[in-house]
């Protein structure tokens, strides 16, 4: 049994600064995503689950259609498991409506000129993201009790909230602490993995060009996101 806690936009330097010990586990570092032209969520997770660089294929879908990517189960390494549980992962089974709503509010926020209304849109945006986070957490903890041979939980809160609130460090720290707490509740072998990190652009956040990894079983050096298929299968199934 191995658990992957997939966290969108978990930033290496913040994990260090906030000294989040559970997120760091015993071994941690940055991932190398330099093979990709840009740190794009959909591209990175699709490449993660297949163990192949899927950038060209995803980008060919265009900006809109890209978000509807659903990679067939048999093309992912999840299919090597008898009874896997994968929660809300982009490119596989994430809640399309939820993430569409997030992008819509984000767009609305940047298009809105009136400061008062802007604040209101941000409030809605945050509320929507937090409500989703609470649901995902609940289902993830249920899954940990279940009879699965592989569990992956995908948490988007650091990315979604970060985009509009990265300058609010105390809010970001509380989110990191919540994620840290989630990791602490997982037993057995576990990997924490982010697609990319986040860097400040004024009060906002943009993707940084490396991801974060940590394990409680061995040092992975500076892995590429496509290496995780091999790492997970080796650790869980000895393949």
């Amino acid at each position, binding site marked *: 049994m191995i658990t992957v806690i997939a966290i969108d936009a978990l930033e290496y330097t913040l994990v260090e600064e906030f*000294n989040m010990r559970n997120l760091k586990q015993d071994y941690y570092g940055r991932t190398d995503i330099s093979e990709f032209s840009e740190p794009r969520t959909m591209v990175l997770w699709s490449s993660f689950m297949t163990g192949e660089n899927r950038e060209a294929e995803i980008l060919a879908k265009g900006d809109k259609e890209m978000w509807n990517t659903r990679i067939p189960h048999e093309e992912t390494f999840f299919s090597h498991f008898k009874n896997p549980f994968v929660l809300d992962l982009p490119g596989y089974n994430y809640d399309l409506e939820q993430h569409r709503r997030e992008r819509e509010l984000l767009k609305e926020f940047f298009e809105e000129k009136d400061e008062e209304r802007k604040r209101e849109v941000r409030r809605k945006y945050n509320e929507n993201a*937090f409500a989703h986070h609470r649901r995902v957490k609940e289902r993830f903890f249920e899954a940990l009790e279940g009879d699965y041979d592989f569990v992956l939980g995908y948490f988007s809160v650091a990315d979604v909230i970060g985009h509009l609130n990265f300058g609010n*460090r105390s809010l970001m720290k*509380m989110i990191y*602490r*919540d994620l840290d707490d989630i990791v602490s509740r997982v037993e057995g072998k576990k990997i924490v993995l982010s697609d990319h990190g986040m860097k400040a652009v004024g009060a906002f956040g943009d993707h940084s060009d490396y991801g974060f990894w940590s394990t409680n079983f061995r040092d992975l050096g500076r892995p590429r996101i496509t290496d995780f298929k091999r790492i997970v299968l080796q650790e869980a199934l000895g393949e």
Partner: protein
Amino acid sequence: MEREHLKLVIVGHVDHGKSTLIGRLFYDTDSLPREKLEEVRQICEALGRELEFAFVMDHLEEERSQGITIDTAQTFFKTAKRDYVIIDAPGHREFTKNMITGASQAEAAILIVDVSEGVQEQTRRHAYILSMLGLKQVIVVLNKMDLVGYSEEVFEKVRGHTLDFLKRIGINPTYVIPISAREGDNVASRSERMPWYTGPTILEALDTFKKTERRDGGPLRFAVQDVYNIEGKRIIVGRVEAGTLRRGDKIVILPTGERTRVKSIEEFMREGVEEAPPGKSTGITLEDKLFVDRGQILCRLEEETPKMVSEVKGSIFWMSSEPLQVGESVIFKCSTQEAPCRVEAIERRIDSSTLEVIEESSSRLENREVGEVTLSFASPVIVEDFNVTPELGRFVIEKEGNISGGGIITRLEG
């Protein structure tokens, strides 16, 4: 009249609940700004969790680290008797410096131990620093009693182990209190879940402690930080490390030995200031135009002045993976003085967690070890025995640009 305040340091293993205890002390004494608390409560709710004090402390720390709020109310909590100032902000990066300077200013200490884990290596190290600094008013709190079902048996067992260890380093705590910082048991109010415990709560225990800091602060020690020329006035900025500085004081400048008088005490937007109490950072002007520079110490002429020495002996607590070695040169920092020095000898090298004497005489001091170290200076430094004037008796050592150890001066030579 200004309320009395007592300086308190809270030490212990990083996972044993320090932040939660600080949060709880603030919360239960109503010392937290309400709107801040409300903000944190809302975020906790958004994340689907109960309000936790660790989150409250995160919030305050982040604001402080960004300099958003320099609100003294946040570092204080109040009881009916007095105010308490917590000097050791949790999560501080400059850990060593903080422990030495923080704990050496403290008048009382709380040593926190997770009752379900007992004394850990870090607990031992922190306790060792308290003992090195000679802190006498110590409360041991055994935290997380909720995790052991508020069991008297568990408490007694861990209490026994803890007291055994503390006895070996000469600490005899005034109280050992079973608490749950998270639930609030025995912090500000008596726990109904531990009827077997009849001693005081943390606040009651703290209120029995005495103020140890001298009110007038003893002989004057004014450490010069900088000199500014503002509108034709030559203002010497520094900190009253000890004693009380008064306008008109006859003073002597060390190390030059030149004498003059304090012409004025300069404070922003205030006229005719007559005195500056111990701990105050302020500006002054002098009657005569003399050479004054950072690192110098101004003393009152009629009082005993500190020694200028070219060799000191001190207990050093080393906290760096790079060892301290005999024969090497490092930077000695004491008050505003910074001086290169040479490590002459290291004696009584001790492992701070096992208390085992590794060597009576050694060529090095490794991470987390304590030793009696002799340091020599090319030009004399102005220092004092820690037990006489703690402000000029504590120091830190910088090696290759990093604060790597700290200690107290135990003997002056040459």
